[in-house]
């Protein structure tokens, strides 16, 4: 097994008196597709927000390749190579698809505002180079026809793809996918699953995926962590998790209160 690139060690996140995450530890190995599942309000998205440091957990430590990222700003985390998509699409609605993807390239571009204002020279060369790379992503996700549309006007499924593309444009080493197929029909779900597998195979990007579609999770995830009420109740391969009585209790309810309390 390869080295873990992301390690979370006993993270606890509280909002006033509410504990959203309680003492959760996990790790993501290089090239792995790690999935986080759990009922609504279990703290899955909160975990993503602590990784990208939008929320600052009160306890615990998150390490990226051995170095702690605690206390840094979200843009620092992004520059390390951790990209993410959002549960409720967070694209920049007034910008076109190309502009959204180019914004993803922001951290990989070096020009400053002054060079940008002059345009000719550094800025133009860099814009053209990144424009070409963005075009590769557009090809990869097959969204050529939507290129010049402002994203606010696009159908939901396409917006989801554009958001995935924007995260890919950041050249990430780890991709955090927050419900990539939420609200999609069967065909769109199949397409998205194919893209996720392609990203993994062709680009070798490790992924953490939060998803409610159990069929998808069980099919493509390497390892699964199950959360309930902010606590980790199980972790393992899809087969192991499916058989875990704690998981069954959390999802289906259980008459055996001892198991649930455990």
């Amino acid at each position, binding site marked *: 097994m390869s080295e873990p690139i992301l390690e979370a060690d006993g993270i606890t996140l509280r909002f006033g008196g509410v504990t959203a995450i309680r003492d959760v530890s996990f790790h993501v190995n290089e090239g792995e597709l790690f999935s986080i599942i759990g009922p609504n309000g279990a703290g899955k998205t909160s975990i993503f927000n602590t990784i990208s440091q939008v929320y600052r957990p009160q306890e615990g430590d998150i390490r990226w390749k051995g170095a702690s990222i605690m206390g840094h700003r979200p843009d620092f985390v992004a520059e390390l190579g951790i990209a993410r998509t959002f549960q409720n699409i967070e694209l*920049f*609605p007034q910008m076109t698809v190309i*502009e959204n993807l180019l914004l993803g390239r*922001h951290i990989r571009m070096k020009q400053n505002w002054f060079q*940008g*204002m002059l345009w000719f020279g550094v800025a*133009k060369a860099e*814009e053209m180079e990144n424009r070409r790379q963005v075009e590769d992503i557009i090809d990869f996700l097959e969204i050529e026809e939507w290129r010049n549309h402002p994203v606010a006007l696009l159908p939901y499924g396409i917006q989801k793809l554009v958001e995935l593309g924007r995260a890919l444009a*950041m050249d990430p080493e780890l991709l955090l996918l927050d419900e990539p197929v939420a609200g999609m029909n069967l065909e769109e779900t199949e397409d998205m699953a194919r893209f996720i597998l392609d990203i993994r195979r062709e680009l070798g990007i490790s992924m953490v995926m939060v998803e409610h579609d159990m069929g998808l999770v069980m099919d493509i995830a390497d390892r699964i962590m199950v959360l309930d009420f902010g606590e980790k109740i199980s972790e393992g391969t899809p087969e192991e998790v499916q058989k875990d009585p704690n998981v069954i209790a959390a999802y289906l309810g259980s008459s055996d209160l001892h198991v649930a309390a455990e």
Partner: protein
Amino acid sequence: MAFNRPLLRTSYEQDAAIFPTYTQKGAMVAFGVFLVLMGLGAPYISAIPEFFLGPTWINPITNMLPLAISALGINILVGVTGQVSLGHAFFMGVGAYTAVALGGSGDEWQACVPFHEEIGLLEERGQCGLGLPIWVWLPFSGAVAAAFGIFVSPAAMKVRGLYLAIVTVGLVFIGLHLGRMFPEYAGDFESGRKWPSLDFRLWKEETPLIEFSEDGKWFGLIHLSEEQKQYFLLMALLGGFIILAKNLVRSRTGRALQAIRDRDIAAEVMGVPEFEYKRLGFAISSFYAGIGGALWGSYLGRRSPVDWSLFLSVDFIAILLIGGAGTIAGTMLGAVFVELTPEIVKHRTDWLAEQIDASNIFTPVANFLLTTGESGDFGPINIGTVAPGWTMSVFQWNFVIYGVLIVIFLIFEPLGLFGIWIKIRNYWKRWPFSY
């Protein structure tokens, strides 16, 4: 090279170009030639602005140009970065007073240092003005305004939207107070002081290298009036600043600013440091404001502290709303519209007043619309000295028109004049087909 079709892009350069097609390039060149010929007073061409603005048309148009430069700044802050600011007049004032302190005529440099070690606040107040040339005071007026913008920007991290607008309103009143506090910079509070001319000097020599303040031959080539010289200078500067602003918006920094406007948290997660870019938005916007303010003061020659008031700030918000926030073409349309409409209304009313005695087809119209204030003479526009009843002067009507226009645009066309242009363009693009 062949003429390309509008949506056929053959290179990334073309895709990122300001004017991707030859038709657009040609139209812009034609428009530039038109502006130059207009400035030169070419027959037929200069008849167009003369029709709207009268024989002194060049004055309102030149007066609009520095304001258009400032409007580019407010567009970068409000339209592109999404930080609503009513403090633009303050930043214009900062730039203008930097210009007058560095470039204006004054007593001695001590007057520019308001605090003296021995006597505290200076009692014997001279007038601060170092008499430096334009290439010193113009960049400095932008830079000092930008520094003030950076100083104010942390407020944008704490408060958003309307709250930020109210915070920045405070700046305008602080500015007015400072104008009263420091007469060595601002001159008399009511009558103001004289601004340096736009003449280009290498240093403080008698005869300027390039003359902008007297009629005469330019470079020994062409005879131009003072107004024409200023028109060309300010038009060239505006053109330059438009290109810089456009380049900013289409490159990495501009996209980051727009991302902050659309969704600031998502932008941060994408690697755009929020505070740094809000600060940059304030800095660049204030830079434009400072340059615009300095040029405006220099063009008009005399300004007083009350000129940098809240009304000026509101003017800029109106420019954005009417023109179309976030787009540079819209900002320019808005600037032209907001600054020139009152002048057009004024000129055409004066013209209409002349038709009363001329007895032609316009006479009934004039009789209907105008009133001199005598009894029995009804009309909504008062041109006499006494205002009978509800009639209003042209000046007051302009305020009404202004207000009504803002309401109309907000309700019916949020994208402003630019949005109307897009609709017209899209209609003709498909014509004669509906889809």
